């Protein structure tokens, strides 16, 4: 399903409104999210940024566990449980990811990935207002993850909707701050920023679905075709002069 054909297919098909929504999102980002993320990065000591990041990660544990189990990844499910228990207690309510220091590294999962593992196709690439790059499969995944998250249930039952909003806002700022430099550079050097982001999203999702195990069949340029001769000669010279 994630052969190179599927990947390119996803890249070619897309809603005509995508570029327009992308432009609106970009405007909103430049006006609100990016400045906040920059201020957060520059004015908050790295130590506190790390603590907030760890706490936000820890809060995701129930959703990750749910999806680990649905994907039949029992080893990862156990790791998620152990991590959550250690970090919530010894790690002081998740503020310190000491499980990683103990050698139990974290991972992320979501229902969009679970659907992918179950063999459901991703559908066309869609840029959602506010949420950004997605596709029908991932959009459904996002809704399911929201509904099964005990944090949201708890907040809803106890009239604490503000908790849901603050957590989402914190996650958005935290995520944006981590990618500030990378996205700035990409934006600067891109000839078509929309196309770059689309490709980035598709590749990232494939990587996440395969749990970071890159395929050996990944299409890549090979050396040894026509233009190779010249470079070969040059390097041989370089080898000789070394």
């Amino acid at each position, binding site marked *: 399903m994630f052969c190179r054909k599927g990947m390119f297919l996803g890249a070619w098909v897309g809603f005509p409104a995508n570029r327009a929504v992308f432009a609106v999102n970009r405007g909103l980002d430049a006006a609100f999210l990016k400045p906040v993320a920059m201020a957060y990065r520059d004015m908050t000591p790295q130590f506190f940024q790390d603590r907030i990041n760890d706490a936000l990660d820890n809060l995701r544990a129930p959703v990750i566990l749910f999806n680990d189990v649905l994907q039949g990844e029992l080893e990862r499910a156990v790791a998620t449980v152990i991590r959550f228990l250690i970090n919530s207690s010894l790690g002081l309510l998740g503020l310190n990811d000491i499980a990683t220091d103990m050698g139990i590294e974290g991972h992320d999962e979501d229902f969009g990935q679970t659907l992918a593992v179950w063999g459901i196709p991703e559908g066309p690439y869609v840029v959602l207002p506010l949420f950004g790059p997605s596709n029908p499969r991932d959009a459904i995944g996002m809704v399911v993850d929201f509904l099964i998250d005990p944090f949201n249930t708890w907040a809803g039952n106890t009239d604490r909707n503000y908790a849901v909003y603050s957590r989402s806002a914190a996650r958005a700022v935290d995520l944006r701050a981590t990618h500030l430099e990378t996205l700035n550079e990409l934006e600067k050097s891109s000839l078509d920023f929309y196309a770059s982001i689309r490709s980035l999203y598709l590749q*990232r999702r494939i*990587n*996440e679905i395969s749990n970071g195990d*890159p395929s*050996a069949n*990944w299409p890549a*340029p090979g050396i040894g075709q026509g233009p*190779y001769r010249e*470079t070969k000669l040059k390097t041989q010279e370089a080898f000789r002069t070394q």
Partner: protein
Amino acid sequence: MLDHNRTQAALKGLVFIFVLILPLGLAPPSVAAETQEMAGSFIRSLADQAIKSLTQKDTPRDVKIKRFRTLFNDSFAVRSIGRFVLGRSWRKASKEEQTEYLKLFEDLMVVSYVDRFSRYAGDVLVITRTRAENPRNTTVFTKVKTSSTGKPAKVLWRVGSRGKIMKIVDVIVEGVSMSQTLRSEFSSIVRQKGGKVSGLIEELRKKTKSLKASGQ
């Protein structure tokens, strides 16, 4: 007599198997292991070289660009990557367009990657493992601990080899391949320009010019 001939034929067959088939089964692992090791040390020495030539703070940017251009041409399969990135349009382009495109492509890579590369090079690069993809391609898995964020980034280097010559054919950062991203981007531009490579060349010229001028 007939039997004797048969035995001989069978023996010949056996010899044939030993001489031709077995080496095929036995030799590659050791060759692959050697190639893997070479690919690993190739990336290691590239990182060391980059640290030496690109990370001093007082080096002016244009000197850095010059050094990076040499480094880039020496260690990346620039023309093969450029060709791959252009995809199907490569064949549609005229000889002149191909030459100009490759020149601009090299330019774009150099000016847009010099900062990123110097930043990565200054950080700690640890090779976690190497994997032979096929006789000519090896993936070198590395973890790069960037100074800005706490978590190390997974950076994969696809190294193509021919005998003793090694060249990087792709860099994959956290699952995102440089060649793949450029390929989608370029094909999108070509499509917008009505399938003309000349349109992409025009855009490349504009972009490299502005990137050179902006010079951080």
